[in-house]
């Protein structure tokens, strides 16, 4: 199958400091890729390049065989949804308004949403399970609910791929599981590819098909999840000794201290 996103030799630097070097990455439709790595390893920068927000300083990022930096922004927005780590809501929009903003690439400069757009937003709210919050103000719902609203906003873009920066980091265990289950549901039932940065090694084991580990802007390891999550690689990635233990078909991950 054709890769939906294909990157070759991506490099990036902020003010002369190199952040990413020679990153190769490709993801097939309907796949779920987790990106792990210590803080400052370059995860967020890589994600922004993959969704066209940042242009790579070197190398090429292709989306469906088209070079992202040469594509129209609105066209990109119809194919790639980006959900940042800590979404900003500068004004008290309602949850429904936030979700409808995902329809922006389909709506003209002076147009309002059509009935069809409202329908799509309604379905997205239902998919992520927050239909009951649609008229609440976004800054008055919990951070977990805000994250779900952001995912619904991404969903109405009708993307082929969703790119999320630490979608569950700030959430409690219940909401974390909920978010990850929804992502898996989108992958399995809508065929949406998912790329997510995460610090949660434990849930990575259950949800991601593939894992890429970044260290200091380079790829430390990549491959099928069960092959990558092991003591040796994780210890290298985070710079402390990490133990991965398999017992009765269950896996435990903890720092050895």
């Amino acid at each position, binding site marked *: 199958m054709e890769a939906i996103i294909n990157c070759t030799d991506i490099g990036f630097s902020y003010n002369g400091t190199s952040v990413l070097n020679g990153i190769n990455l490709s993801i097939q439709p309907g796949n779920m890729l987790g990106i792990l790595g210590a803080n400052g390893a370059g995860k967020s920068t890589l994600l*922004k390049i993959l*969704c*066209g*927000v940042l242009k790579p300083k070197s190398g090429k990022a292709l989306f469906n065989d088209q070079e992202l930096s040469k594509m*129209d*922004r*609105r066209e*990109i*927005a119809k194919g*790639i*949804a*980006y*959900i*940042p780590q800590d*979404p*900003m*809501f*500068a*004004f*008290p*929009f*309602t949850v429904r*308004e*936030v979700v409808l*903003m*995902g329809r*922006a*690439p389909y*709506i003209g*400069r*002076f147009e*309002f949403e059509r009935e069809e757009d409202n329908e799509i937003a309604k379905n997205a709210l239902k998919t992520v399970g927050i239909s009951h919050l649609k008229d609440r103000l976004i800054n008055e719902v919990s951070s977990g609910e805000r994250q779900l609203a952001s995912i619904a906003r991404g969903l109405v*873009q009708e993307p082929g791929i969703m790119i999320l920066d630490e979608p569950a980091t700030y959430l409690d265990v219940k909401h974390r599981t909920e978010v990850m289950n929804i992502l898996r549901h989108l992958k399995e039932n809508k065929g949406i590819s998912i790329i997510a940065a995460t610090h949660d090694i434990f849930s990575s084991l259950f949800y991601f098909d593939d894992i890429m580990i970044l260290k200091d802007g380079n790829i430390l390891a990549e491959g099928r999840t069960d092959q990558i999550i092991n003591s040796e690689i994780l210890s290298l990635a985070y710079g402390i000794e990490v133990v991965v233990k398999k017992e009765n078909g269950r896996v435990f991950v903890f720092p050895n201290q």
Partner: protein
Amino acid sequence: MTLLFILWIITAFISIFSGTYSIGPLEAISNLDELSRTIFFQIRIPRVLMATIAGGTLALAGAALQALFRNSLASPFTLGISGGASLGALLAIRSGLAVGVLGFSMVSISAFVFSILTMLFVYTISKVGGVVATGRLLLAGVVANFLYASIVMFIQFFSTFTESLQTMRWIMGSLDVVGFDTVWKTLIFVIPGCAILLSLTKDMNLFGLGDDVASSLGVNVRRMEKKIYFATSLAAGAVISVTGPIGFVGLIIPHILRMLLGVDNRIILPSSFLLGATFLTAADTLSRTIISPVEIPVGIITASIGGVFFLWLLIRTKKEIII
């Protein structure tokens, strides 16, 4: 929005027919003597038009600036843009540059240049790590205002008594225009400025979700920011160069509307124009009639209403103010 439009029509209607010299609606359409005709067509109607343009533009510019700074305390007045435009206009008038260049008034152009410079200054100062900090924003506005005020005072110091009085009057903000000439000259700047801002309302909404998300949803963020700088300076600068710094319209109006209609900029911006126009027309009517035949500068009325409102706003948003 239709309701706001009707509100403006009513206010404008009342305003045209009220003043020291009374002209009734029936008289206006029937026979008017020479004096009444002059007052009606050369003073009253241009004045109401000017109030509409000024109030509408300042409120629209305020709403746009609040979207740009992602902060509901931004406005041409609080950011020092009014002060900058005033100084620019004053300098042009005093240096004898009050001539037209290719049909554009140099006074408006000078006001435009000063307002855009002020905006860049305040924007640069108040942005910390890509986010506008409220405290820095207001402080930068205060600094700009003080700086301009001191330069204005410096100019005042070397002025004759008459010049000085004129300037003083102008700084208080007044809609004292005669004839349609000034109205047209202002509109040359105001129409493109407001049109640009109204074309950006959808992008402003997306911008409220942060730079990266807006960009990922198809907005060219840097270009949008530049358009807003340019358009607000153009429109607000032109208005202020004629009326002087009429305060607080740009702050109060969008606020009231957000409380009533929600925060969608596609609704807030055009509504701000209409309500701003209505508010200033009403304030001007008040200023002409409250202690008739004396006309109080309209800036005194808007600033006193606005000052109280701003204070209430600060108290209400206490928890959000972080320096």
